[in-house]
């Protein structure tokens, strides 16, 4: 009986470990801070989570193939710069904004495809090619802007990231849409299945008739384009293209993916997990800010919580 109960708890933890950790955290913060559970703050949290969550969705695809994408933060910055620069061209609204968005997304896609090409054609470890891209794009962001932000944008640009639809912040809506589509793609289409197959055993997948090259190219492109989406939303929220935006975003995104239960060895994981992982991190930062915890101590606490959440999630595997 006692072992039965224990087993049930472990089972529950296993299946929903990260969800429980998340709910526990929400509970704690709602007790500790009267501001936490207000509707406005929850929208605020969803808005703050959106940037990292969108990147983490793309990162999930990459990590499922046993890869990694360290370039996301620099792509965020440069996509923002590209989008803001292009939308300043002399075109009537909404063409200018549209052109800016298209250019930003194009950059993200190309960056992803470029990285993917090096992984597939030249067999460069994803870690290294994306590390190189991270450095290169960051340098490029400073070179093209000479270190100064791009600003004096068309007024409408700010409404992308700062606006609301039916009371919900636009980035939150974009995030939900991204997750809905990505989840269906990953769980219900051939492409999604092949992502898992390539990550689980690339040689087995190849022998079964999957083209690993295409799958790998695609996941890096997805990561690139979603980073660009985040970059554009962020630039819009900042009403400027910032060359130093997105620093260390890769770590937050990877943390969300891994805390969400996706294996860095590839082949195993879900977008639902990543979503909860991203939310967990955002809630934590928000809660600590609301409670006026010193930023030094915040770092320590964030580290501990990531660790704890992963340990709870780990319960399922033992």
């Amino acid at each position: 009986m006692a072992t039965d109960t224990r087993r049930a708890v472990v089972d529950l933890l296993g299946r929903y470990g990260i969800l429980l950790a998340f709910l526990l955290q929400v509970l704690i913060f709602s007790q500790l801070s009267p501001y936490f559970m207000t509707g406005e703050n929850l929208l605020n949290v969803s808005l703050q989570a959106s940037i990292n969550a969108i990147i983490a969705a793309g990162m999930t695809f990459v990590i499922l193939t046993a890869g990694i994408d360290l370039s996301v933060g620099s792509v965020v910055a440069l996509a923002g710069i590209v989008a803001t620069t292009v939308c300043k061209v002399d075109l009537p609204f909404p063409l200018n904004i549209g052109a800016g968005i298209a250019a930003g997304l194009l950059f993200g896609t190309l960056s992803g495809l470029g990285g993917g090409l090096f992984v597939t054609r030249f067999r460069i470890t994803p870690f290294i090619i994306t590390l190189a891209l991270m450095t290169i794009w960051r340098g490029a962001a400073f070179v093209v802007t000479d270190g100064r932000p791009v600003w004096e944008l068309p007024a409408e640009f700010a409404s992308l990231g700062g606006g609301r639809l039916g009371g919900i912040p636009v980035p939150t809506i974009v995030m939900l849409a991204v997750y809905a589509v990505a989840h269906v793609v990953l769980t219900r289409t051939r492409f999604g299945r092949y992502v898992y197959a390539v990550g689980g055993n690339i040689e087995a997948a190849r022998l079964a008739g999957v083209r690993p090259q295409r799958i790998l190219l695609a996941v890096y492109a997805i990561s690139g384009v979603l980073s660009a989406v985040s970059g554009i939303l962020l630039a819009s929220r900042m009403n400027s293209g910032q060359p130093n935006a997105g620093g260390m975003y890769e770590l937050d995104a990877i943390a969300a993916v891994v805390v969400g239960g996706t294996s860095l060895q590839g082949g195993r994981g879900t977008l639902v997990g990543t979503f909860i992982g991203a939310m967990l991190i955002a809630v934590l930062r928000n809660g600590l800010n609301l409670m006026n915890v010193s930023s030094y101590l915040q770092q320590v606490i964030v580290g501990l919580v990531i660790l704890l959440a992963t340990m709870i999630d780990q319960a399922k595997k033992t």
Partner: protein
Amino acid sequence: AKKERAATKVIGVSLLNRGHIFYKDLEEGLQEQAKKEGYELIVTSADFDLGKQISQIEDFVARKVDAIILCPVDSRGVGPGVLTASQAGIPVFTADIAAENAPVVCHIASDNIAGGRLAGEYMAKLLNGAGKVAIINQPVVTSVLDRVQGFRDALSKFPGITIVADVNGQGVRDRALQAAADVLQAHQDLAGVFGINDDSALGTLDACEQFKRDKPPVIIGYDATPPAADAIKRGSALKADVVQYPKKIGSSTIDMIRAHFAGQPVPKVFPVEVGIVDQAKLSAI
């Protein structure tokens, strides 16, 4: 909690970063003065990340603080954040770095361009108007860009002085040390170095002392933190430091907020003096 809130004014602070002594001191000035006034401070750090800073502002708005103090990561980009806050009826004050085109109640700062100019003029004096000079830079921070601009402006009046190197020490001592060591190799006859903050200047000093020269370059730093002041006093190659008064910036900011709460008029800009200190001045204290 509600009752407590009615009694105490809560002020949200978003610092540029917390790794530098300058902001430690600024925060100390804020804290000391706030304690006197009985205000509660919520201090966060944006770590040079504007996205993060805007999130922090949003958290403050969600929490309905009574005022916000910002050290903006970017003068222009912070605009939407300031707007959000003031639309929610929360007054915004900026310290150290200004926000452009944004409804800020008052900006309290020392003038970094002027500080850079002071350093340049002192350098010219030390070098008697001739020699090679290097800058240990951190060209991703607005206030640093201003210092360097002031420094270059001042030196442009001295044709005998050439700036031969401008390298990135990332504003931290370990990286500055490495960058400076390389510059010293490339320019054996280097006469002067401007470190954009004290970590940069002290890193340069470390490099000079580890690669002993008959005639090491003179170094000018910025901020006059205790280790830098000490190095100046003991007669090292670090000769002078631009001194800001970050604690003063902090306490003045609280003063402006108190005045604003009390319904008194406050100026758009409240300047805090800067100066330059050398061995003579420091020994005099």
